[in-house]
Structure formats: C-alpha cells, structure tokens
C-alpha cells in the first residue's frame, strides 16, 4: 500500500510534466494540423536555460539568499526564451510551408528538430549537465511515504500554469481568437483576426509551457542532456493523442494518464520497458479510438 501511494505521487508529478509538454503539441496541431517535431527540443532548450540561469544565480550567491525568487526568475526567463525560439522556428521552417504538401511540412519539422538538438549538443557539450543542488531538499513524511518539497513545487507550478492557460484560452480575447482560428482560418481572417499572429502566439505559448516542463524535469532528475527532448516528446504526443488531439483539457488528462501508466508500469511490471508503455497506449488508442478520450477534431480528413 505504501508502495502504491508513493508511486501515485511520483506518477502525479511525472504526469503533470507530460501534460505541460502535451499542451504544446495539441495546441499547435489544433491550429495548423502539423505535428511539431521540434517541440521536444523546446523542452530540452528550456531545461538548458534553467541550468544556465540557476548556475548563474548560484555563482552570484543569490541562490542561497533568495532561492524561490531565483527559481521564479529562471522559470520566467526560460519560458520567454523558448517562446521567442519557437516563434523564430515557426517563421523560418513552418510558415513558408503552410500551403505546401503535408509531407513537406513534416519533413521540415523533423529537420528543425534534428538541427536544434544538435545545436544544443554543439553549444552545450555531449555530457549531462547537473542542476545546482541544494534546492528544496527534504520533504514531508507520512509513515513510509515521502513527498519531497520538490515534488510539491513541481505539482503546484504545473497546476498554476494549467490554470493560467485555461483562463488564457477560454476567458480572454486572445483565447477566443485562437479557438476561432483553429476552427476556420479563412472565416476568422474575415472577421479581422490576424491568423499569422495567432499561430505564432500559439507556438510561443506551447514552447513556454514546454520550457517550464524542461526546468522541472531538470530539477527533478538533477541533470539535463541534449537528447532529453526526444523520448518525452513522443510520450507527450501520445498523451495529446490519448486526450484527443486539439483538445486542451484532453491533453492535460492524457498527460496525467501517461505519467501514471509509466510509473506504475515501471513499478509493477518492468523497469526496463518503461518507455514502451506509453507507445503501447498510443497505438491502442489510435487503433480503438482514434479521436481520443475527449476527441474534438473528428473530421475524417484530419485523422
């Protein structure tokens, strides 16, 4: 029972992170029907930005005096950076191809992903980069279960970001414009929505969330690596598909489920095959219910 509860907490943490990444996929797919292969790289770039900024703060000694401020600052700056990176990538590699064949856009996205991950490797080196330690150590103990402060921080930040996103998408004018662009680009352009701007913004928001996830993964596992974007990227995509691609609530739910399945699969079945579970879910969802749990885009031409 203790093991079960412990795994539940771990799964919740991991699931939140997957949910954050999955949101970027689902939003971009919802609006331009393109799998953004470079999304995993935004996540990795966020992790690297986190390590750079936090080590910078640590070297100046701010980490010891104001740890929370430093974390907040690093989070914000990394998100901002990745948002700009995503907008640049969108302008360079996706926008000119919006009217060409889908295969061309996919290949371009894949090329961008390879380019970015190798750019990270060249600038940051091949080896793991450690996060500065000594942040939010310790935790609560309930009998045999431990909930570390770090996990609580991650879950709180995740929930905060998800609430922020929900308000942004469902309550503001920008969100309304995004949703209408996703439904019909031509029509929303006719009523005065600048669809290019909205698409660019969607990329930026998705990448910002991915960057936050990157920092939290870095804090959680203690280090970042240039290949870290690849596998979480696929898993997050599985989460987005599971929730019904194009659906924001679905992506959150899907991320949680994928995280839980991975942790429980690793705990109860086999740790070596933990990466396989997410793929198996992805394939069975596509086979039995391609629209996902809360599928929105049931349009036959899209799926």
């Amino acid at each position, binding site marked *: 029972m203790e093991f079960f509860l412990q795994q539940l907490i771990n799964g919740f943490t991991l699931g939140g992170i997957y949910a954050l990444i999955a949101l970027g996929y689902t939003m971009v797919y919802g609006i331009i029907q393109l799998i953004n292969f470079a999304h995993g790289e935004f996540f990795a770039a966020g992790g690297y930005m986190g390590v750079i900024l936090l080590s910078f703060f640590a070297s100046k000694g701010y980490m010891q005096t104001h740890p929370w401020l430093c974390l907040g600052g690093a989070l914000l700056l990394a998100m901002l950076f990745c948002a700009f990176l995503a907008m640049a990538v969108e302008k*360079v590699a996706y926008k000119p191809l919006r009217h060409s064949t889908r295969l061309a856009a996919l290949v371009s996205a894949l090329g961008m992903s*390879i380019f970015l991950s190798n750019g990270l490797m*060249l600038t940051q080196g091949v080896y793991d980069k450690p996060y500065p330690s000594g942040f939010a150590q310790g935790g609560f103990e309930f009998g045999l279960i431990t909930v570390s402060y770090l996990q609580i921080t991650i879950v709180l930040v995740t929930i905060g970001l998800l609430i922020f996103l929900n308000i942004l998408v469902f309550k503001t004018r920008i969100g309304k414009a995004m949703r209408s662009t996703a439904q019909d680009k031509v029509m929303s352009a006719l009523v005065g929505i600048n669809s290019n701007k909205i698409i660019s913004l969607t990329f930026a928001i998705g990448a910002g969330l991915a960057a936050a996830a990157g920092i939290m993964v870095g804090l959680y596992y203690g280090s970042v690596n240039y290949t870290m974007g690849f596998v979480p990227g696929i898993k997050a995509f*599985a989460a987005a598909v599971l929730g019904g691609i194009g659906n924001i609530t679905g992506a959150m739910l899907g991320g949680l489920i994928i995280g839980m399945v991975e942790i429980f699969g690793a705990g109860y079945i086999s740790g070596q*095959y933990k990466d396989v579970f997410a793929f198996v879910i*992805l*394939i069975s969802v596509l086979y039995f219910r391609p629209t996902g749990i809360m599928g929105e885009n049931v349009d036959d031409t899209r799926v």
Partner: protein
Amino acid sequence: MLWLLGLLWPLMGIHADGTLSFGKAFTVWLYVLAGTIVIVALVILHKQGLLTWAGAPLKMLRAPAAATTARIPTWIWIAIAAAAAFVFPQFADRYGQDVAINVLVYVCLGLGLNIVVGLAGMLDLGYIAFYGVGAYTYALLSVYYQLSFWLSLPVAACTACIAGCIIGYPTLRMRGDYLAIVTLGFGEIVRIILNNWMQLTNGPNGVLGIKAPGLYLPDWSGGFSFEHLYLKKLHYLYYVILLLAIFTILAVRRLNISRIGRAWEAIREDETAAELMGVNTYLLKLLAYAMGAIFAGLAGAFFAARMRFVSPESFTFLESATVLAMVVLGGMGSIPGIILGALALIVLPEMFREFELYRMLCLGGAMVLMMLFRPGGFITAKRLGRRSEDKEG
C-alpha cells in the same frame, strides 16, 4: 527572419560553472550565422535576378548538352554507371571499398524507404527498425544454427516483412501524420527490446561471431568437388552488396511502373479519390509498408554479415533520420535521385572529417532548406503532384 534564429544562439551558450564563457557556443553560432548569411544572400540575389550572369553560361552549355544526352539512349548511361560500379574495387583501396559498401547499403535502405515515403506518401520514421530486424535475424541464425548467409537472406526478408505487417496493421487505418509518430515510437520499441532481451540478443553487448557470406566454388584439383569459401575480403563483400543493390533498384523500378506503383502514387496524391476509383487503399498501403521492410531486411542481413557483429547501437533514430534525409534530399520517388542522395550523404561526411560534429546539424538544416526551396529534391521525380486536401489553406 533568419536573423532572429541566428541572434538567439549565443544566449543558449552561456556556460555557467560560476563563470560565463561564450567560447564554444560562439564558434557554433558563427558557423550557423555564416551559413545563414550565405544562403540568405544567395536567395536574395536569385530573387533579384542578379545570379543570371552566373547561370547564363551554364544555361548555354545546358542546351547542347541536353541535346546530346537526349540522343544517347538511357541504357548506355546505365551501362556506364554499372560498369563503373563493377570495376570500382579494382582501383580503390580498402578505405574506398569500405565507403562504397556503405553507400550501397544506404542505397538499398533509401530505395526501400522510397516505396513508403516517395511512392505511397507515408512518413515512416522507424524505418531503421526493419534494418535491425533483418540484421538480428541473420546474426541469430548464423550464431545459433550456423545457417548460411544466402539461406538467411530470404528468412531475414520474411521476418522484416512480418514485422512490417505487425506495425502496419494497426497504424495504416489512419491517415497521414499519426503514422509518423507511431512509426517513431515503434522504432524505439524495437530498439528497447533488442537492448533488454538479454537471453536472445545479448542486450547492449551485441551478438558476436557472425559468419561472413560463404560461396561454393567448383574445385577440379583431385576430382570434382565444391570448396567452401567465406567471403571475408572486402571486395567480395562489395560485389555481394552490389548485387543486392542492383536487385533492389530493378525491383523498385518494376514496382514503380507497375499497376501497384500507380496505385501507390494515386494514394499519395489523393487517398479519397484513389479509393473511389477502386483502389484498395488499406491493402496497398500495407503492401508498401511490407515491401519497404523487405528491402531493409535484406540490407540488414548484409550489414550483419559484413560487420560480423550487431548491437542495438546501430539502429537508433538518427539512422532513420539519415535514410529519410537521403530520400528527401535526393528526391522523393526518383531512383537516380536517391542513389545520388545516398552517395552525397555518405561521401561528403567522409571528405569533411574535421566537421564530423556538424554533420547532423547540417543534415537537419539541409532538410528544412530543401523543403523550403526545392521540395522535389535534387532530381525531381517525374510524376509528382499535390494532394487536393492540402491546397486550401
């Protein structure tokens, strides 16, 4: 807007171990910036028509050249190429032969992937998994059952084909994009299984002691008997893979101009229309997938026989991406284009050894640029159209 991407790189390189050092990141950034400036300049010049003076003599040369090439029948060109390929090992050293073998392996892989991506229009990112299946099939058969290479070749093709069907069966019902990510996932699954199934594949340590392909040569000294000879010499292996490559080229060409090939292209152009015209899209897509897997399996078996060692390390996603880049850069659906692509992507990195680290960076960048400026690849395939569904924004 390329400058924006250029500007963002140095920020990534703040190298903080207490200090800030820009050194490493700065050089990378400089290279990328230089490349970007050159490309942007070329594009701008091209748009303003300033490059016509450079292109004019080429154009003048091209017209008579095209006339003469048109007069010589195609088969002569093919014969020349085949003859050159055939005599190549006589003139090349060990290193040259090694590179040539690599090129031919990738030609096989590229042509196999071409069936899936170029003809049927499905993006397959886990293609290397079939290569791995083929390689492990021969490796295990050779190590455990001492089966000869030539017998294992069809077996490897069969197992790869079965793997292709298993993967294709659930995924091909849906269209387009999902397939890419599912195949990506499958590629990873195959690699993870190879890595973790210790009893069968010996995990990350790989399988050692695979036999080279053998050959029975008639031996007339002292009566008539067959002498068994292992083809360990590099130039013998070169001929084996040359044979396989020629077989692949012929097979893909025959498939391309057959009814099946036309049906595949119809699916690529417009799936709904193809289905309405009576094409069994699901079965044909599965067939394309299985065919692609078969050629990868053959190439994989050869790879195992040549290296005499296989490990999961050889079958990562980056290999899939490299093969895909060959198909994309060379020209989707065009056989000479893919041969050119394989040649370029193997030989160029060999020539620029000092830029080894930048290989994948350039590859990724080249894929994006190719899609932006010349989506058909170097040598564009003849029958190429647009999907009707992509036309509306």
